[in-house]
Every structure is written in C-alpha cells, then in structure tokens.
C-alpha cells in the first residue's frame, strides 16, 4: 500500500486543529471542485483533497491514520501488527488496496452490519467516466471500451481494487455534454442492494468541417460571386454522404440555408438540421480575362451596396 500524506495534501501541519482542517478543505474544494472550477487537473486534485478530508475530519479515522506513522508520500508501507490489532479486522487483507479503501473499509465494515446483526442492503456506488467521440461516431452510434480501476467489496464489506473492462454500445443521439447511463455497471450492491450505475459524460472531438450546436450542424459553404448572383446547385458534404443544394439567385454572404434532418440524430426521434452558411469568395488571383469581365461589369453596373451609408 502506498502512503499518502493527507496533512500535506491539505497544506497543514500534523497538529492542525479540526477547524483548520475544515477551513483548508473548504478553500481547496472551492479551488479544485470540478463543478465550480476550471483549473486544469482540478478533478484529480479535488479527489486527493476530498480523500484527505474524509479521513482527517473523522476523529477515529484521524487517530488511526496518525498511528500509521509518517512515511514519504508514495512509499510502500504496511500497517504494524499493533495497528492491525487496534483497527483491523481478522478477515481483512491489506493486499491490493489503496489507502482510501483502507479508511472507507474502516467505517464501512461497521456500518454494513445493522443493530440486530442483520446486514443492511447497500446499493452499489455510481461511477462517472468521460469519453470523447467523433462526430461520425455520434451520427452512426458506436461502441466504447472503458477501463475502470475501482474498489469492489467482498461479503464482509472489505474492498479490493479490480480492473474492469466495459464495452458499451453508444446509441445514436449523442451530442456535446449529453450523458449516458449504463445501467448496473457501477459498483456492486451489497447484501441484496442494487448495483450502481455508470454515467458517461460525452464530449465531441472538433470536426474539420462541421460545428455543433445541440443536434444541429453548421458548415461554411464557399460560393463564387457569380454563383451567389445567378444561383447554382452545389454539392454539400453531410455526415450521411453528399447532397445537392439549390442556392437561390441573389444569395448574400452569411445567409444560412437549412438542409432538414441532416444534423445529428436525436435520442428520442428525428434529427437536427444542417445549416450551410454562405460565404462569397472572390478569386484570389483573377487572370487577365476574368479581370476584363469584372471591369466590364463594374462599368455597366449601377449597384451601390453602400447607399445607406451615403444617406446617413
């Protein structure tokens, strides 16, 4: 088992008071809690801080932790026989567990047995995981392989770290920020309690062409000036293959043309739309003939796009 210095994690001396422990935890929780903080690695740091606080805020656990002695963080150690006698249980094994498991078992094993000795049903813990998928995977549905290193509890309520691999089918309907529930894939329930669920937070990889807003997609569609003026039928890429889009004559830059149902499929029914944003692009290096034609157009056209500026 690797040693963790819970006092150092909270930025405290070993003789810190309960009030100091609480104050330091609250300060660090506000800084790192993933729900309120944008700190990089905030989630990992918050877990360390919360684990330290969970043990040090409880008088009995703190005494047990202090009696483990002081070691270098990360150093392998084993509780002394005296410690095991004072705080352990005959059927508890210290192999393959984390320091946090030790202290959750410390209180857990007591809670798991009711007053009359009957074991209370305890539902399994819910787990959360993050997964990033491509837009194409969101469109088609996909399968994810998740590797979890989680504590599992034996019949006496003692933990053991296990490696679990879960292959999850991600149905169509994903978009950025949507969550998925994998029923019964959280921690195992104890004494007849139901198994926990696994929740996955989905994020989408940025796509080179499409931008996502809920289940709608946005695509920049370049047009030549003459296509914009005269109208044209152009090919547009979609996640389901190319479609032909009729651009009406007199199309302006920035105008959006909706291609219904060509966005991301929605979880319940239907699909979002694809919006093509018209962008009029001029030839960067017109050749001599093109220049002549544009010049001829300039000479005969009476169109003045800045008329409204002159009026004011």
């Amino acid at each position: 088992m690797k040693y963790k210095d819970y006092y150092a994690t909270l930025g405290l001396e070993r003789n810190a008071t309960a009030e100091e422990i609480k104050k330091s935890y609250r300060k660090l929780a506000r800084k790192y809690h993933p729900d309120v903080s944008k700190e990089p690695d905030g989630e990992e740091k918050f877990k360390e801080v919360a684990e330290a606080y969970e043990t040090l805020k409880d008088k009995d656990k703190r005494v047990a932790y202090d009696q483990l002695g002081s070691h270098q963080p990360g150093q392998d150690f084993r509780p002394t026989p005296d410690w095991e006698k004072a705080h352990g249980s005959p059927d508890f094994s210290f192999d393959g567990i984390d320091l946090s498991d030790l202290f959750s078992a410390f209180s857990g094993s007591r809670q798991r047995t009711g007053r009359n000795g009957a074991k209370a049903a305890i539902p399994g813990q819910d787990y959360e995981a993050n997964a990033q998928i491509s837009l194409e995977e969101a469109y088609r549905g996909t399968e994810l392989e998740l590797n979890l290193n989680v504590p599992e509890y034996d019949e006496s309520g003692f933990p053991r770290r296990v490696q679990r691999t879960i292959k999850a089918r991600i149905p169509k309907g994903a978009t950025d920020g949507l969550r998925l529930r994998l029923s019964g894939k959280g921690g195992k329930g104890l004494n007849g309690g139901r198994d926990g669920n696994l929740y996955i937070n989905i994020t989408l990889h940025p796509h080179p062409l499409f931008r996502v807003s809920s289940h709608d997609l946005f695509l920049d569609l370049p047009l030549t000036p003459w296509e914009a003026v005269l109208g044209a039928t152009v090919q547009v890429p979609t996640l389901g293959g190319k479609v032909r889009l009729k651009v009406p004559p007199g199309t302006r830059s920035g105008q959006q043309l909706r291609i219904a149902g060509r966005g991301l499929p929605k979880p319940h029914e239907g699909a979002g739309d694809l919006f093509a944003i018209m962008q009029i692009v001029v030839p960067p290096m017109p050749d001599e003939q093109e220049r002549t034609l544009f010049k001829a157009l300039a000479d005969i056209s009476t169109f003045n796009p800045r008329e409204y500026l002159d009026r004011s």
Partner: protein
Amino acid sequence: MQIEQTEGFWLHERYEFSLAELADLSGLPEVDLREWVDEGVLMPTNTQAPQWSFGLDRLVTVQLACRLRKDFELEPHGVALVVTLLERIHALESEVRDLQAKLPRVLR
C-alpha cells in the same frame, strides 16, 4: 479479464421518470428530493399532477446537487442557490458555443 457488454441510455429531457425512480437512481430519500423541489433545485414537468414526473436530464441536476451538498457541506437553500447559478453559467456557456458554431470562419 472479463469484458462486460452493455447498452447505454441517454439522460435526455424527452424521457421522463417518476419521483420514486429519481430517488432510486440518485440514492436519495424522496423527502430530500421534495425539499429540493420546494427550494427550486429541480422542477417536475407536471407540477399540478398528483404524481410528479421529471425529465431524465434532471438526474444530472440531482447528482450535481448531491455532490455540492456533500463536498461543500451545504444546506438545501445553499444547494439551490449554487445549482441555480451553475445552471445559468452552463446555459450561458452553451449559448456561447451555439454562437461560435453559427459564426462563419474566415475562408482562405
């Protein structure tokens, strides 16, 4: 090592569930959930009906409220205030993302 196969289910507002199911999924007693409804942390889709229904996305809010209550040791009113503010931030962030998606890029 054993590989477990499973099918995912979206937590989307269009799917609904009851207070009892919400209590079961969140691991919270119904009385706590009723308190959070009173505090405005979560709203049923049918406030007037005898049996409340909730959009399945509310489970995400309940889980957020649970984390805030536990990790910041907050009272129900404090939970309601933080959830309201966080949901406003999420709505604004999502509006910014939508506007960015609609903004044409500079083409070369």
